[in-house]
């Protein structure tokens, strides 16, 4: 299966990426290539740079790229605005989805979906057509329609926020989704809903990066590759068995690997 994947062009190429915030280096040469249909998991201790990597790929303005490149579908996107990246098909599922008081979730989802559709030269949806579309997508994450009339993420429980993220992913149909600790704060049932949602949305053309601490999400969605990050670098890459090994040996094991390098 893997060899077949490699025949196509990569979706995302992160090449020797270094980045800092407030002159503090966070990433120190990360390389990662994602082909269509692949699922990558990135694991590592808090503060190892996992979340930063995801934010930089999405274009967060607080980080400076000091070296290296990010390529999306072969094009260097280092200087792209976050909205351009999103429109062209990069999706970041937030670890802590942001609350936006006063802005209705439905309107937010519609504007955002239309921004993506516009990029794809698809017709923009009016409120009625969008209502139909969103109704279908709600089923994927088993969310109630009532969520749509509330303000974006405001007063949502942790699980509801995460499901709202996956709902956005379902609507935006990204080429690549980077899901930053989407599993944290979820109970078993919610985790299953989220995981099955991710599986339903992804296909042979999309790429997924799962950032996680825990094996339990990877039990639901089996990755092709597992990368272990420490101190701003990917220090080890392997198959899904690496996650199990990590679960057994703990991060102390990777700490020792860092010392060796």
């Amino acid at each position, binding site marked *: 299966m893997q060899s077949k994947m490699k025949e196509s062009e990569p979706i995302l190429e992160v090449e020797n990426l270094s980045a800092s915030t407030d002159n503090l280096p966070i990433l120190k040469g990360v390389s990662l290539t994602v082909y269509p249909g692949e699922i990558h998991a990135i694991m590592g201790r808090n503060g190892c740079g996992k979340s930063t990597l995801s934010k930089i790929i999405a*274009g967060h303005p607080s980080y*400076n790229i000091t070296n290296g490149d990010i390529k999306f579908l072969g094009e260097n996107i280092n200087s792209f605005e*976050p*909205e351009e990246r999103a429109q062209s098909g990069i999706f970041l599922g937030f670890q802590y*989805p942001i609350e*936006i008081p006063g*802005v209705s979730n439905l309107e*937010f989802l519609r504007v955002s979906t239309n*921004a*993506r559709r516009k990029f794809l030269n698809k017709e923009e949806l009016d409120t009625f057509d969008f209502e139909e579309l969103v109704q279908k997508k709600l089923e994927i994450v088993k969310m109630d329609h009532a969520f749509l009339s509330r303000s974006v993420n405001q007063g949502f429980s942790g699980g509801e926020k995460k499901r709202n993220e996956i709902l956005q992913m379902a609507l935006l149909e990204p080429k690549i989704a980077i899901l930053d600790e989407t599993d944290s704060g979820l109970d078993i049932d919610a985790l299953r809903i989220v995981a099955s949602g991710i599986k339903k949305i992804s296909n042979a053309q999309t790429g997924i990066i799962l950032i996680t601490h825990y094996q339990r999400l990877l039990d639901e969605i089996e990755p092709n590759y597992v990368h272990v990050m420490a101190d701003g670098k990917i220090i080890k890459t392997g198959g899904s068995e690496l996650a199990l090994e990590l679960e057994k040996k703990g991060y102390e094991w990777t700490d020792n690997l860092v010392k060796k390098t």
Partner: protein
Amino acid sequence: MVNENPVKDVVKEPYKYGFVTDIETEKIAKGLNEDIIRLISQKKEEPKYLLDFRLKAFKKWQKMKEPDWAELGYEKIDYQDIIYYSAPKQKEKISSLDEVDPKLLETFDKLGIPLTEQKKLTNVAVDAVFDSVSIATTFREELAEHGVIFCSISEAVKKHSNLIEKYLGTVVPASDNYFAALNSAVFSDGSFVYIPKGVTCPMDLSSYFRINSGDSGQFERTLIIAEESSSVSYLEGCTAPMFDTNTLHAAVVELIALDDASIKYSTVQNWYAGDEEGIGGIFNFVTKRGKCLGKRSKISWSQVETGSAITWKYPSCLLLGEESVGEFYSVALTNNLQQADTGTKMIHIGPKTKSTIVSKGISAGNSINSYRGLVKMGTKAKGSRNYSQCDSMLIGDQASANTFPYIKSQQPNSEIEHEASTCRISEDQLFYLQSRGIEFEEAVSMMVSGFCRDVFNQLPMEFAAEADKLLALKLEGSVG
């Protein structure tokens, strides 16, 4: 990709109503004295009681001091350097719109307020005021069928003198404050509305105020009377050309609601605000007050204040009638070097009166935006209630917001509730919206609209959409 401080200063969208209409005008000499007042009154062929009203007000004004308690800073206004009457030259008596100078019609066309029969707005009657005079009022016959009077105040003085004499100055007395006294002495035109008993006004009424000349002030006066069990929704819009001098606008609006009557008064104020350096712009000193005279009467103010270099405005309600209701919904947006000191006064006099205040202040650029409000429960206001909510939103790190709520209660059996909050549009919120493909500017405007939603919901439909667009326009380039 990296923007050191993504939420910062200001580049402003050019003001699209800034054109000047080249038209021959009749102006009187600059300056203010008794002779000028007599001249204005004479030009308008006013009865003696009105001249006396003006002269009395002028005497009071001369003894008064310009208020300085507001959070506003501006160079002293030279009241002798202002022209108090300026009117486009036209035929003495205009019987139909065909006789109105086409240039004037064109002006209002350009402002989106077409007046001619073919083009006029459907279901909104418009009174168009240009500098000191009313140009035209649409739908008069249709309104007359319902007994509704909607005309310029000058015309009302001539045709409905009994109503003017009975009500003018009863809500805002000439001695009320410095700018009200000035207005009472020199007011030139404005709108008059009378809704007879039991009539629900069949359409929205609207006045559109246009300042055209740079050196004359606009002092309009509006009077709305709603008889028993009647109701009306009134809209007010304002624009002015761009001049590098400041133009004074000192209006007085009086509303009177009798038993079971209701008046809804909505304003979208978009006077020229001056440029980025704060040169030019309208000084907007306005006294607006409604008197809920009757039982169960209701007066509701909603305003979207986006223009003017300076806004000094406190639309208020005197709640006299038992169970009468006062409401104030406000969005005030300031950008660049604009200053706004605005709010309301809810004076509870009668028992079981109720008031609601919802104020949303948005300050961007280097602007100052203050809410100032008074809630007073009089000795007889037993069982009365007030709820106030004052929220401020800051955009960038140079703008400031203040809230000055004053509360006076002489009645222990009354409730006053006040909530206030301040927020800043955070980088994380913006990034979240952007990371969903929403453009930066649109993200800001979505958040601002969201912040103002409680107030926009109160505006008449066509106004709400306009207000939303206006805010987006005003904020364009204010961040980023």
